[in-house]
């Protein structure tokens, strides 16, 4: 009920930053979902052409979809926070969960993109059907997806 009341009493000037924040989060999750699906298929295939194609797709999904989605989500989130007037001393726990998952997740996202990109290069050079770097990037992207879904839970239900 608290969220419902918040939605009703939320000042209208929060609407646009909230729209950007949620849109960015959805694009981020969509990019991660695409990358994880591609990486899972790369993991299961044995044909080097398939493995290379799926690994390349996963890398580009992370770089061109998930990363811009994160930026949009983070800008929108900071914009709302500035309007809400939280100082850092009285911040509710759901905001802390949001910051932790967003900022720690960003570092993991960068590492995942780097590993996926280097893995694609490794696959192209070796012509083989496996890359340790791509394989390491797969669980990282999966963990990120799960972490951001936990963030969705925290942002939606707003636990104290």
């Amino acid at each position, binding site marked *: 009920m608290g969220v419902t009341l918040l939605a009703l009493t939320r000042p209208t000037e929060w609407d646009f930053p909230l*729209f950007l924040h949620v849109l960015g989060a959805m694009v981020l999750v969509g990019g991660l979902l695409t990358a994880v699906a591609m990486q899972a298929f790369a993991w299961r295939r044995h044909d080097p052409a398939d493995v290379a194609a799926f690994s390349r797709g996963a890398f580009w999904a992370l770089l061109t979809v998930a990363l811009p989605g994160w930026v949009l989500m983070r800008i929108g989130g900071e914009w709302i926070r500035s309007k809400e007037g939280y100082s850092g001393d009285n911040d509710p726990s759901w905001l802390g969960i949001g910051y932790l998952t967003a900022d720690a997740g960003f570092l993991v996202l960068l590492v995942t993109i780097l590993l996926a990109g280097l893995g694609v290069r490794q696959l192209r050079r070796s012509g083989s059907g496996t890359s340790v770097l791509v394989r390491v990037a797969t669980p990282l992207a999966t963990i990120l997806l799960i972490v951001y879904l936990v963030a969705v839970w925290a942002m939606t239900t707003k636990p104290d």
Partner: protein
Amino acid sequence: MALHDWLLFLHVLSAFALVGAEVLFTFLIFWLWRTDLPADIARISGISKIGSVLVGIGAVGTLILGVILAFEADSYAIWDVWIIAAVILWFAFAELGRRVGQAYDAAGARARTLVSEGRTEPSPELGATFRSSNALTLHLTSLAIVVLFLLDMIFKPWA
């Protein structure tokens, strides 16, 4: 956690599944935009199936949980303008999604047939089917509806 919180979380999670699937489909369309190779298009059929499952779960989840939320919450009513708008958008999205699916499934099926026949050389006819402006227009329209959905849910016009 209260029942309302669970319903709201699952409703939002369904929306994320729906939009995530739309992002996946959009990425696949642009990723393969310049290819005429049957193997490239046939390869992604498994991934597009994941998208189809997600969009189905997301669409059904958002509608059912959204309607339950409208009845459960005292502050909303099912006849609120923004909720009626959302239901109309949902039906428009469902019909567009069906047509988009038909268009791209035809290209995927053709690609798999060519690969099974051993015809792996570039096929301009297949590429043209995949790059059909009609299919792309339908897909972009469905994306626009998703954005309208989000605007409607956040701005809640006439609430």
